[in-house]
């Protein structure tokens, strides 16, 4: 027992060794989770399409992801004859490296004291965490462009260039979504941003910056090349895009890089807007935990609805959603160094489900529609949000009561959201009217009468 303490104490006081151990743990966890996320994606998309999904390999298809990995490993590693060899090898490495580097700043849990030293549950507690994401995300763009160029294939080149253009356009939206939160918090350190949302669900920044949340949410899809923004890799458009010529392990690296990117983005949005590793329970208004009550009501309601549709769910399926909702209370009873990662995991799974759901439900953007959307619609909205947030923060000032600033920001944010919604619906109604009635002509993009 004594020697274990000695080893741990040495570990805690030795930052390099500690970082290596943390890297091992995080890498192991993420690489272990990716096959099951691949399986969950195929399963959920299948269910939305009224079919069962992979169910041959293990019970419920559990081993499918691992088997996919083995298959990719054993495939023939083909290099197209006239490609640029060095760049061909380099591209997947850049993509995967950028994706994994992003993992190093995500806080997975609260910091704790051990052997007289504060141990953070982040691989590196960078004070400029948010900036690091943008810097490293740029490396990912390099990887995709180089992959498209080095393949000696016109389709890949087009796919790579389109992906590069899309990624750099939506990095602006990403930044504008985050800036509102940064102005409220005043620091770039992701752990501190999480900590300032520790008061339960009503302290989360999604209520104070709903427009920022929406913009980060949309840019998240564009940054990971995920439907509705997946033109660079859409199979029916470009036969595979920038990773057409890749096979075996290199393709597995691209594939894994995409999923790790999704995991990173999901963790980021939960850190910035949804409280990170903090639990949503805990805000008490007049002594009652409203979110807890809401969860219990949701559990009962989902059981009732599922029981009415019993035929589709089976005798066990009716209990799954209520059990999950009620079980989320149980996470809070774990020790804090376990509850933190558990909440990060739960929030990540929720966002992965939303990613997968959007892929199954939405059609793809055309490339010019994509660029229009990023530059002409999201950028102005982001600037308006930025300006409004800055004005409110300046006007409220540091001396007001602690509820004034969040309330004012929430009012502004939701008002802007309502304006966006009505404006876009009116635009769509006008364009539909022009399309379906004679003699009505409108200008192409702004839909103003000619």
């Amino acid at each position, binding site marked *: 027992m004594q020697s274990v303490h000695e080893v741990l104490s040495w570990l805690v006081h030795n930052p390099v060794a500690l970082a290596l151990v943390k890297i091992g743990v995080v890498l192991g966890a993420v690489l272990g989770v990716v096959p099951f996320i691949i399986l969950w994606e195929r399963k959920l998309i299948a269910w939305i*399409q009224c079919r*069962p999904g992979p169910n041959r390999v293990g019970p419920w298809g559990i081993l499918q992801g691992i088997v996919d990995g083995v298959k990719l490993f054993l495939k023939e590693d083909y290099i197209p004859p006239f490609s640029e060899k060095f760049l061909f090898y380099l591209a997947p490495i850049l993509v995967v490296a950028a994706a994994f580097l992003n993992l190093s700043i995500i806080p997975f849990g609260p910091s704790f004291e051990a052997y007289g030293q504060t141990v953070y549950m982040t691989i590196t507690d960078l004070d400029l965490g948010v900036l690091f994401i943008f810097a490293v995300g740029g490396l990912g763009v390099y990887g995709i462009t180089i992959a498209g160029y080095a393949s000696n294939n016109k389709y890949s080149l087009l796919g790579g260039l389109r992906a590069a253009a899309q990624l750099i356009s939506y990095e602006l939206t990403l930044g504008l979504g985050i800036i509102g939160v940064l102005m409220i918090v005043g620091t770039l350190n992701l752990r501190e941003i999480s900590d300032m949302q520790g008061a339960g669900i009503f302290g989360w920044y999604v209520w104070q910056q709903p427009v920022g949340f929406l913009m980060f949410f949309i840019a998240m899809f564009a940054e990971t090349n995920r439907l509705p923004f997946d033109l660079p890799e859409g199979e029916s458009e470009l036969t595979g895009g920038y990773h057409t010529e890749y096979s075996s392990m290199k393709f597995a690296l691209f594939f894994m890089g995409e999923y790790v990117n999704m995991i990173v983005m999901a963790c980021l949005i939960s850190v910035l807007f949804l409280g990170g590793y903090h639990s949503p329970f805990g805000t008490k208004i007049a002594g009652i935990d409203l979110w807890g009550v809401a969860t219990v009501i949701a559990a009962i309601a989902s059981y009732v609805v599922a029981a009415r549709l019993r035929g*589709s769910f089976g005798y066990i399926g009716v209990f799954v959603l209520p059990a999950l909702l009620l079980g989320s209370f149980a996470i809070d009873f774990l020790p804090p160094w376990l509850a933190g990662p558990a909440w990060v995991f739960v929030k990540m799974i929720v966002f992965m489900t939303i990613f997968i*759901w*959007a892929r199954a439900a*939405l059609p793809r953007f055309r490339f010019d529609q994509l660029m229009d959307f990023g530059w002409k619609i999201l950028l102005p909205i982001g600037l308006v949000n930025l300006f409004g947030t800055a004005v409110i923060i300046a006007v409220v000032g540091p001396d007001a009561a602690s509820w004034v600033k969040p309330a004012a920001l929430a009012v502004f944010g939701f008002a802007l*959201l309502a304006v966006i919604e009505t404006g*876009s*619906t009116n635009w769509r109604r006008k364009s539909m009217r022009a399309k379906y009635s004679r003699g009505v002509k409108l200008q192409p993009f702004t839909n103003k009468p000619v």
Partner: protein
Amino acid sequence: MLTQIATGMWTALKHTWKPRVTIEYPEVKKERPPFFRGRHRLQRYEDGLERCVGCALCAAVCPSEAIYLEAEENDPNNPVSAGERYAKVYQIHLLRCIFCGFCEEACPEDAIVMGPSYELATYSRGALIADKNLMVDPVEKGFGHWKKEERLRSHIEPALDTGSVKR
């Protein structure tokens, strides 16, 4: 726009709790209709005599020339079939057969019928030349439980069955 996107996504999600339309073969097999044209069967009479008399009308009508037939005189003491001849060698090359059912329609003895068996995959081409011993019904099966006319018209409702019209 946001509410419309959300409505669209909810409509898609509703399908997760609707029943799946997939039939999980091979644990669950789809029911075939009674006139399904599967692998051929050579039927027998109730007393065990084969119906096939080796007339080779099926071989003549087959569009793919998939049937090979050698006839032999029946031994009067030990008849195999109910007529004068029987088919000594009867082979159908299942890889040439197009499963059209003309042989079944041409047979005057109601001997060859197309049965319900469709799981015919093998690992070698030789195994797909169906021999007589594969196709002939076992003795205890006896009388083929579908007469040809009944089989071919079983999907027509009784009210529409004109009865006297030959196919």
